[in-house]
C-alpha cells in the first residue's frame, strides 16, 4: 500500500490510484467544468481531456509535483477550455435578446432576474476571465493560488477579476440589486 492521491493510504499502482481519484472527484470536476462551459456534456468532455493529460503524468501529479492532483486537473481544464474556445466555430447566443412582456403574476422577482443576468454574463466572459472568476468565487482560491492554476501572475488574476466585476456590474439590474445587498452588508 502506498499513499493515494488524496493523501490517504491507497494502492501504490498509479493506475489504481488514478482510478480512485477519478471516482472520488469526478462529480466535483464536472461541476467545475460546468461552471466553465455552461454545458454538462462539454464539462464531461473537458474533464476527460484533462484527465488524459493528467494520467500521463500521474506518477508526478499524485505526489503533488508541481500541483496537488485536483489543482493540476483543474488547471489542465482551464487551459484546455482556452484551446477549445479558440478553435470553436460556434457559440451559444444569449437568450435575452428579445423580451417577452411578463405575464401578470409571473414576475419571478428581482433576485431571479439578477441571478439570470449574472449567470448569462458569466458564460459570456472570455474563458480565461471566466476561469479566474470560477476559481476565485466558486473554488474560493486566493489570488496567488488562482495565478498558479492559471499559469499567470497574481497581478493578472487581479486584473482579470477586476474586469470581470466591471462587466458584471454593468448588467442591467445588477447594480440595483447589488446595491440593496451592499446596503445590508454595510449595516
Amino acid at each position, binding site marked *: 500500500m502506498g499513499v493515494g492521491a488524496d493523501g490517504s493510504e491507497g494502492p501504490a499502482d498509479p493506475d489504481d490510484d488514478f482510478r480512485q481519484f477519478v*471516482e472520488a472527484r*469526478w462529480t466535483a470536476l464536472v*461541476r467545475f467544468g*460546468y*461552471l466553465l462551459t*455552461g*454545458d454538462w456534456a462539454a*464539462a*464531461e468532455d473537458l474533464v476527460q481531456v484533462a484527465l*488524459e493529460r493528467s494520467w*500521463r*503524468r500521474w506518477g*508526478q501529479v499524485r505526489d503533488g509535483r508541481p500541483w496537488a492532483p485536483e489543482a*493540476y486537473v483543474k*488547471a489542465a481544464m482551464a*487551459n484546455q477550455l*482556452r*484551446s477549445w474556445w*479558440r*478553435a*470553436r*466555430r*460556434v*457559440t451559444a*447566443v*444569449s*437568450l*435575452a*435578446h*428579445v*423580451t417577452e*412582456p411578463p405575464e401578470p403574476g409571473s414576475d419571478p422577482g428581482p433576485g431571479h432576474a*439578477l*441571478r439570470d443576468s*449574472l*449567470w448569462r454574463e*458569466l458564460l*459570456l466572459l*472570455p*474563458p480565461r*476571465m471566466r476561469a479566474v472568476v470560477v476559481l476565485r468565487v*466558486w473554488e474560493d482560491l486566493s489570488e496567488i493560488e488562482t*495565478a498558479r492554476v492559471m*499559469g*499567470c*501572475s497574481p497581478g*493578472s488574476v487581479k*486584473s*482579470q477579476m477586476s*474586469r470581470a466585476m466591471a462587466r*458584471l456590474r*454593468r448588467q*442591467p439590474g445588477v*447594480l440595483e440589486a*447589488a*446595491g440593496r*445587498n*451592499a446596503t445590508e*452588508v*454595510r449595516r
Partner: protein
Amino acid sequence: MTHDDTGHGDRNDDLAVLDVLRGVMDDAVGDATRPAPRWDELERRLREARRRRRLGDAGRAVAIAGVVAAAVLGATVVVPGLDTSPRPAVTSPSSTRGSLGGDAAWLAGLREHVAEQPEGAPARDQKVLFAGDVGPYRLALVDGAQRGSRELGAEPAWYLAAAGAPPDRMRPSRTSAGVCGVQPPGCAAAPIGTGSLPDAVSLVLDGRSLDADAVPGVRRGDRAVVVVVPRRPVNVTLEGPPRYAADGTVSHPRPTPLPESHGVRQAVITTGGRHRLVVGSTPSEQVTAEIWPDLTDAPHFPVEDAAPSFNGGVTPPRHEVQGALLAVQHASGLAVNTSRRRLLWAGAFGGRRHGVLAVTAPSGAHVVGVFRQLGAPADLGTWLTAGAVLPAGPLEDVAVAWPNPVAEPTGEAGDPRPSGRIAALGPAGATSATFVDGDGRTLATTALTDGFGMATAPGTRSVRFGDPTGRVVTTVPVRPLLTLDDHDFDR
C-alpha cells in the same frame, strides 16, 4: 446604489455581487451528482486519446527534430511556402523568428524582463519563438515564460507593446483567446492570446481583442493583426468578407496566401467584415479562425437607428437588440460601417420569444435573421435563426416565412423537430397571410398582428401576404431553419 468617496461602496457592491454570483453558481450546478462513467469505458477513452496524442506528438517531434538537426549541422532549412533563406530551429534560443530575431540584445532584455515578472521563469529557461513589429504592435511569443508552465502543458505566452518599444515595455497578454472562431455575442470579449494550431502558433488581434491600453493610438475596431508562426511547412491563407449583390447572390473573394516575413506569416487588416484565416495544408488538418477588425463586443456594437421594431411589436431593451443584431451581423460577414441594421419585429408566441432582424449590405440586399428561443424564458441557451438573403429593396418590402419547430429540451441545442407550424412576417400594408402547399392549394389563412402571423399548416411551401382589399402584396417561399451554428448561410 450609493458609492462613498472612499470606494468602500464599490467594494461592498462587489462583495454583494460576488455573494449573489456564488449563489448563481450554486444554483447552476445544483445537486447534480454526475456519476463517473464506468472505469473500463473511461480507461478505454483515455487510452484512445493517449494513442492519438502520441501519434500527433510523434509527428511533431519528427518535424522539430529535423529542423534541430539541420540547425546543428549548419544546413539550410527549406520550408516550402515560405522564403528559402536559412532559418534556425524554433527550439533553439537563437532561433527567434520575426524582425527582431537577430537583435540579441533586445531578446536578452525581453527574457530578463519576463523573468522579473511574478512567477516568471529564469531567462535561461525561456525561448523567444517570435519577436517583431507587426503594424502598430511590437509582439513577442515566449515559450516557458512562467515557472511550471511547461509541466502544465501551457502554451507559449504573447507579449505586446507599441511598435518600437524597448523590452521592458512589453506586457504579457492579459487574457488569452486569440484565434477564435465564430463568436457572436460570446466573442465579445476575445482579447489577446495564442492559438495552438496543428502546425503553427498564431495570434490574432482584432476588434474584439484589442488591448487599447497597451498600444496608445490604436482605436478599438480599426484594424486587425495576424501573426502565424509555423512549426512546419503549412499553408496559410486569408479570405476577405463576402460580397452581397443587389439580386441577393453572394460571392466570396479567392483566399490569398498570407505574406511571409522573417519566417512568419503576418498581415495587418484594415478593412472591416469577416476575414477567414485558414492554417493547414489539407482539409483534415486545417484550422479556421475568423477575424473581425471592426466587430467589437456587444456593449460597443452600434445599433443606432436599429430600433424600434420596424413592423411594430415589442421593442426589446437596447442591449438585447444589440446582442441579436451582433449575431446577425456576424452571420452576414458584412463590415459594420458599410452596412445598416434594423430590428424588423419582435414578440412572443408559442411561449417563446422571437425576433426578426436585418442587416443591409451596401448593395441594398438584406441578410435577415430570425431568432427563436430554446428553453424556458428565463433560461440561457441557443437561439436558432432562419437565415435568408433577400434582394435589394426597401425594408417595407421585406417578407419572410419560416417553419416554427418544436424546441429541444431546455438548454440543449440540436436539430429542432418540425411542428407543422409556419411563422410569417409580411411587408408593410399586409394584413393577412395565406399558407399554400406545393400545388398552390390554400392550407390556412390567418390575420397578421404587427405584420406577423402563424398557422399550423404542414406542407406549406409558400406564404401569400394580402392587404385589406384582398390583393396579394407578395408571395415568399418558406425558408428552412438554419441554426446559428450554420452561420455560413452566405455560402
